[in-house]
């Protein structure tokens, strides 16, 4: 694998382009289903980048979490927009000026990121020609314990960190998820009318023989019929239901 830096670079650019293209597509595509599909492309590309960074555990977690998450996005898309053709869910009469505020915020954020990237504190010295060299690979990989971390995909290390150093954020995140789940249950709970009375629907007593004219009369729960229904009850009980 030591000779595969070129491959790494090709893969990196491939994933990066796919990721950015996918992300742009998510934003600009009219149909929500396509957006979700492009989101999948984006997440898979991010997972690929994690693999390139020797973090296969995070890559797999990325796919696992977002693969399922994406399905939910798809369902929401289908549920909220209803029949096809899918229209822009936000609506056509969106006033143009509302673009302004999120646009400004987004550009400000991007500027901040660029500024912090280009600031001298950040050790980003490896832009060398078109391809990106790995930042001092030899030093990073010779650090004590790094090889062991790479060997098991970072599982142990991440696990230990999550349950020691980053315990609080971890638990906070889980509480947040729990809250979201409870919220979803409350929002989607169906309301049913209050139960009036327990009991089985029974045979009405006011039906008499005259209900059916002439030819036949219905005899209610007498003799054999009663027996039969009792048999039924006992059968159900023995089967462990009721």
């Amino acid at each position, binding site marked *: 694998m030591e*000779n595969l830096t070129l491959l790494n670079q090709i893969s990196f650019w491939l994933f990066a382009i796919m990721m950015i293209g996918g992300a742009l597509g998510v934003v600009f595509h009219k149909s929500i289903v396509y957006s979700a599909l492009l989101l999948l492309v984006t997440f898979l590309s991010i997972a690929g980048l994690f693999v390139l960074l020797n973090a296969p555990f995070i890559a797999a977690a990325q796919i696992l979490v977002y693969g*399922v998450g994406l399905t*939910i996005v*798809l369902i929401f898309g*289908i549920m909220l927009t209803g029949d096809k053709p899918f229209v822009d869910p936000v609506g056509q009469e969106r006033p143009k000026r509302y673009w302004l505020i999120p646009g400004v915020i987004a550009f400000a954020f991007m500027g901040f990121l660029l500024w912090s990237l280009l600031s001298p504190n950040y050790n980003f010295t490896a832009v060398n020609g078109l391809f990106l060299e790995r930042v001092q690979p030899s030093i990073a990989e010779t650090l004590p314990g790094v090889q062991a971390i790479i060997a*098991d995909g970072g599982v142990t290390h991440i696990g230990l960190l999550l349950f020691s150093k980053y315990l609080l954020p971890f638990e906070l995140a889980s509480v947040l998820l729990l809250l979201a789940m409870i919220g979803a249950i409350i929002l989607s709970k169906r309301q*049913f*009318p209050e*139960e009036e009375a327990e009991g089985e629907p029974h045979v009405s007593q006011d039906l008499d023989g005259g209900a059916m004219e002439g030819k036949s009369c219905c005899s209610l729960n007498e003799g054999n019929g009663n027996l039969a229904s009792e048999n039924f009850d006992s059968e159900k009980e023995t089967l462990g239901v009721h």
Partner: protein
Amino acid sequence: MHDLIYRLLMNLGLPVELIFFIWAGLMFVVISLVGQVAVVFMVLMERKVLAWITQRKGPNRVGPWGLLQTVADGVKLLFKEDIMIPGQDKFLFTAAPILFFAPTFVIYALLPFTDKLLGLNLPIGLLLIFALSSLSVVGIVLAGWGSNNKYSLIGGMRSAAQAISYEIPLVLSALGVALAAGTLNLKTIIESQNAGQYGIFSWYWLSILPLSFVIFWSSSIAEVNRSPFDLPEAESELVSGYNTEYTGMKFALFFLAEYASLFGMSVLMVILFFGGYYSPFGGLLLQKWFHINDPILLEFEMATWLIIKTYIFIALAMLIRGTLPRLKPDQLMGFSWKFLIPLSLVNILSIAILKLTWIGTGLKTIQAGPFTFVVPYIVAYGVLAIVLFLILVIFGNIFKRKVISRIQLQQRTV
């Protein structure tokens, strides 16, 4: 073999990158061929098994004993017209079978069929398999949506709900294995089951994780959409569910991928709970009893054991299909959320207790032996029983059919 091909390619003077690609491609072809052949015979086997259950003969016209039936069906599907009805989203309609098919076959690259026949020996193989199997649901949902058919849409929605619900107990029960073995690497999991050479007694399903196995089995059947959890394609309600509108090769892709995922899940189950490619007598018989150390013969023995075990589970899945009626969506969800998930959480807890208290080896592998399971059982499953009892007491009887009284009432008000 590895070295031979590798050297051959090197001697051709190809660049290393290209060799890497060729090598990966070759490996994938070999492994997906394993899958294809398995699927072809599984389809025949399923038809034969169902025929035996219902006292019929099953396919017996094409080839001896109907062996070529699936091949003939495949040829038929190849030549069938690819029908598209108006209003379908062409791109999604075409992409859906591919999205369903691809991840199920990529899984094969991660499964250790033998010691050497293994596409990628990843340290996180187990996790990646679940990740990939969760991806294939996207294909089903897209198929449901892109088909412009209401049955398909309902099937797709059901499939999504089902996959999300059953992913959780599936992963949680496999997590028990990961805890016990101390790794996510499938090969290490197999090796750690064979560590003491006790054979069947040290396989995880018997020695440490019987409950995990039961949970894993039920949710894996749900995960691969098989009866009694085959709601996405319930033929009595949804005609054929998400693949109602598919014909020809697109349908064949769905069909193949379904069987392929059943095969993959069965192999995974054997790896996690049944000692993978080792014999039930501990180690390999050729090595142990006949003292043969020829690596190729040993490979064959490994493959044989794995295939035998896998097909036992596949046959059981087919038996289940021939026996049980289908669940309803609410029962399906209830079974997962109210029963399997609490149970698997309790199971994880008990395994953690077992690991920390009895074995006391901290993060190391639990060495399962013939008698390890006696005391841990009492400790861990005692805790489990208490917790389960508490859950039952607190949340009421899960087997009580509350839904029924509700529905009954609704009817009366109508």
